[in-house]
């Protein structure tokens, strides 16, 4: 390639200068053109801002800043922490409200209300008989309890019941389902058998004879006159008179005939011994004592 001459270099520079000049002129023209447009734009913008100013936007903004300042000054850090805690409680409440049971309740209630026009009107009788419905009664109880709580809070007389919700619910349900308190029943062991406490009768013992728990001859057919003498002595009759024997013989005969111990009325009618005399014969309990001495089981019945 041939080396460029000085003339060539000057030509090149000249061309470059010319190009730069042309560029400068174009820029000058652009700014010259832009000037009026820019002024126009500035005018419009100023007008717009002026309009906003007139409508109080900036005043509002300034006030807003003032409010923000005041809030920042008034709110302490612990307030913010409290707000955070409240947020948790609020979220809990929201979660509680959206529990499936509550949602189901709301859905059911909505369903009922939607079809409310299909229900027949309730007569006074219907209202009365509905009062027996256990679900309704429980529902009314819950509503009443809620209203009471609302009343307490709104009056500010009593602080709201802040006990644990579960405990409160149990207490509420307990009040409705627990049986009415009655006089507490004494433990079984405090009640004496037979209901009346009295000293146990000393059990009769008769040597050579087998007696039952009540002191009567265990086997009535083993009775002998000797037994009668021994037993009479035991019950406080040292000597048996002829009248005693009338009674004893009648009781033995009646036993042989009916296999039952005769009661007093039967003895008096059958033996001819009067009631008065019978009571005089034995120290007490003429019916039982006759059976004892006559070797018979304890008489049953009320006469």
């Amino acid at each position: 390639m041939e080396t460029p001459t000085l003339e060539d270099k000057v030509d090149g520079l000249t061309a470059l200068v010319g190009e730069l000049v042309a560029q400068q002129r174009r820029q000058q023209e652009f700014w010259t053109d832009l000037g009026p447009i820019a002024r126009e734009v500035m005018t419009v913008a100023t007008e717009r801002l002026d309009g906003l100013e007139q409508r109080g936007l900036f005043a509002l903004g300034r006030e807003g800043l003032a409010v923000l300042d005041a809030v920042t000054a008034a709110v302490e850090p612990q307030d913010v922490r409290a707000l955070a805690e409240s947020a948790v409680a609020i979220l809990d409440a929201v979660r509680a409200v959206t529990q499936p049971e509550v949602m189901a309740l709301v859905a059911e209630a909505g369903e009922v209300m939607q079809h409310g026009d299909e229900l027949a009107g309730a007569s006074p009788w219907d209202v009365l008989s509905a009062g027996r419905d256990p679900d309704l009664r429980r529902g009314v109880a819950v509503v009443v309890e809620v209203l009471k709580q609302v009343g307490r809070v709104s009056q500010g007389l009593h602080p709201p019941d802040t006990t644990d919700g579960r405990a409160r619910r149990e207490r509420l349900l307990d009040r409705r389902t627990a049986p009415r308190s009655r006089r507490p029943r004494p433990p079984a062991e405090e009640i004496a058998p037979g209901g009346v406490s009295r000293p146990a009768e000393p059990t009769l013992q008769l040597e050579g004879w087998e007696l039952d728990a009540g002191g009567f001859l265990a086997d009535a057919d083993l009775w002998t006159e000797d037994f009668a003498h021994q037993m009479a002595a035991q019950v406080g009759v040292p000597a048996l008179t002829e009248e005693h024997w009338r009674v004893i013989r009648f009781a033995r005969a009646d036993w042989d005939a009916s296999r039952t111990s005769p009661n007093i009325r039967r003895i008096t009618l059958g033996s001819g011994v009067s009631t008065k005399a019978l009571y005089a014969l034995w120290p007490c309990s003429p019916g039982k004592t006759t059976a004892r001495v006559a070797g018979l089981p304890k008489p049953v019945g009320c006469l």
Partner: protein
Amino acid sequence: MSRKVAIIVSKGGLDEVYPAFILANGARQSGIEASLFFTFYGLDAIMETKVDRLHVNMAGNASSPIPTVVAGLPGMERVAATMMQRQMQELELPGAREFLEILHDSGARIYGCQLAMEMFKVDRDSLIPQVEDVITVGDFFEICDGAQVLFT
């Protein structure tokens, strides 16, 4: 101390005096002292003219097999008493007069109420001989000191 029972009989129906008789008799048979105190309509049971004709009132009795409207008809108390006496005879229960004799013989004490007798214009001679005395409520409480008191 020996046991005692005092029974106040304030009504004179057959079904109302027999429980008292049976209680007193049972007490005597068990060696328990027994007193019977007849007052108000209970006096009928110790009056000579009425002791054999004690009635049974079925009207207003929830346990009665006879409807109340029927039980209120005239004479029904006599019919009911007859029916009841028949049942008692089957069980060899003594009649009211005989029962009182048995009670008296067994040592039970029979008292009339003085105030009730004045009210009903009943004199001492119209009572059955088994009546031990005519007493006041104060006397009664003295007699039943330490006793179990039953009111029928």
